[in-house]
């Protein structure tokens, strides 16, 4: 999982049916001190994360399919699975 900051929500009217009703967020990976590292990406949310929250993002498809329980043919990889209170570095 990646340690990330929620940058902001994203809207898309036209999308693959598997994304219907799922909140989309842009997230920015962070290092252990909370500084930005690498490139932002898109993730769906399962834990009601908010803008600015530090979160854990699963970036793997099989785990995402297990969480979503929508069957085996789901084209979703990145899922926010936790809100981080703090990291002790």
């Amino acid at each position, binding site marked *: 999982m990646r340690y990330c900051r929620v940058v902001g929500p994203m809207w898309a009217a036209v999308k693959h049916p598997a994304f219907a009703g799922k909140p989309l967020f*842009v997230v920015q990976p962070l290092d252990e001190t909370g500084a930005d590292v690498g490139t932002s990406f898109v993730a769906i949310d399962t834990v009601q994360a908010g803008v600015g929250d530090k979160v854990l993002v699963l970036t793997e498809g099989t785990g995402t399919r297990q969480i979503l329980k929508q069957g085996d043919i789901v084209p*979703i990889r990145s899922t926010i699975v936790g809100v981080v209170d703090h990291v002790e570095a």
Partner: protein
Amino acid sequence: MYLGIVKGTVVAERKYAGLEGTKLLMVQPVDEHGMAVGDLQAAVDRVQAGPGDLVYLVGSREAALACDPWFVPVDAAIVGIVDGIDVPNPATREGKP
């Protein structure tokens, strides 16, 4: 998943079985401000996107799962057209109002 801007269309007559009739687009991956990150890539289009559209893509094996049939050799698929991102200076659709 990641953001990208559609740059053009790929015309390929001869493709692997299962990919007949699929639309391929050239996409430049971008960050949330529309700044290019990484290299241009070809992606299967599943949402009727067009040049200039800001889209989001899914990579690796999940790209094939966006296709029908899904057992196809694909590693990037466009799965949504982005209407907006709530960040201070969001990416924009090039060439479109």
